């Protein structure tokens, strides 16, 4: 069945079974391979994307439910190849180690910063509690997220 929705601001049409996971449609059909599959059951957050501005696990969303929606993936955070302030802060702070969790952390943190540009460390930890880093590099991620907007991270 054909489904229409936008990804990172551009209209897309995909022919997929209605229960296909948004994650697979993004990665396999549309080749947005930034979103990663970690656990495939909503525990790890590596597949986090925004649907109509809200962070969700794309492994738990069937494509039929995104018909007409606006999807943002990690590829949509940079502007014409220029990294966002948040992405710059991740680079500066060394907030990526092996990197597989990074796209999910970036998208979740992006959603947080849209609502709350100056989160405290506790607010950032709470907002990011659905994202797991298997390298356990949490402190530097929190450093980056709390300092991202004003460039006041401790890195």
């Amino acid at each position, binding site marked *: 069945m054909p489904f229409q929705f936008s990804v990172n601001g551009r209209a897309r049409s995909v022919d997929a*079974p*209605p*229960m*296909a*996971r948004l994650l*697979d449609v993004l990665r*396999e059909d549309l080749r947005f391979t930034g979103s990663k599959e970690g656990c*495939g*059951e*909503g*525990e790890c*957050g590596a597949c*986090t994307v925004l649907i109509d501005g*809200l*962070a*969700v*696990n794309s*492994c*738990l*969303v*069937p494509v*039929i*439910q995104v018909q007409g929606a606006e999807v943002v993936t990690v590829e949509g955070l940079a502007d014409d190849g220029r990294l966002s302030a948040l992405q710059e802060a991740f680079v500066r702070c060394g907030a990526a180690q092996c990197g597989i969790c990074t796209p999910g952390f970036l998208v*979740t943190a992006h*959603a947080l910063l849209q609502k709350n540009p100056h989160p405290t460390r506790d607010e950032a930890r*709470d*907002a990011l*509690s*659905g*994202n797991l880093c298997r390298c356990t590099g949490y402190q530097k991620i929190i450093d980056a997220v709390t300092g991202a907007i004003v460039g006041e991270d401790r890195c």
Partner: protein
Amino acid sequence: MLSCTAPVHQPRSLAEALAQRAVHPFATVLAGGTDVMVYLEGGALKPTAFLDLWRVDELRGISTSGGVTRIGALATWTDVASYAALPAALRDCARTVGAAQIQNRGTVGGNIVNASPAGDSLPMWLVLDASFELRSWRGTRKVPAAEFWLAYKRTALAPDELLTAVIVPTVTGEVRYRKVGTRLAQAISKVVLGLRVSFAEGRVSEARVAYGSVGPVPARASAVEGRLVGHPLTEANIDAAVAALDIHPLDDIRSTADYRNEVARRVLRAELIAL
């Protein structure tokens, strides 16, 4: 990769949803997908068809009128957490469901109908004297939360019925919520406690104590409630009430019966002392 080819019926209105449910009583009902997609992926669910309610806007939203709050079955935990007219303890509960990504998608109705013994919110509906609005093409009925969960994963829903809303009356007293899991976020509960206590003239006038994860269905601890009512909330009375707790939890992959017995008592005592 998930390759499920079962047909998906996607009604656009409540009337259409009820008509389709009547014809497809065995279709797996899909709301936010945070449980159904996990079961599908794990192979625990082999559906013949789906009834996807996501487009039924009449099931969204939370509203309050005449002291009664109506939570649409498709309201998400994020919606509940941000609805100020609901008791703070229920909003706290909403913030313990999974983490942000799950709260943005998981629905109140899904948590209730899924009827997991470990469902985070279930004891809260018991202590808030909530009732569930069940609708079918035949009509509408209201079932008190206390009569909804019949046995392990079995509910009072008839095959042609859908849960359409949760009705939360204005209640008196102090309301508390405690969830004990392996960690704060993304944890499936080992013990869930809902508590509501009202006072009159220095004595407990009404008590609601309900647990999840310690039996096949979420249930009120009526022996504890009975021991609290009519007495001042002294430490001795609290200890006597806690001693009256009669639960029979199981050993399972998440915890042991011993741990659950001990923790169920400790969180109850701690919450009562803190009132």
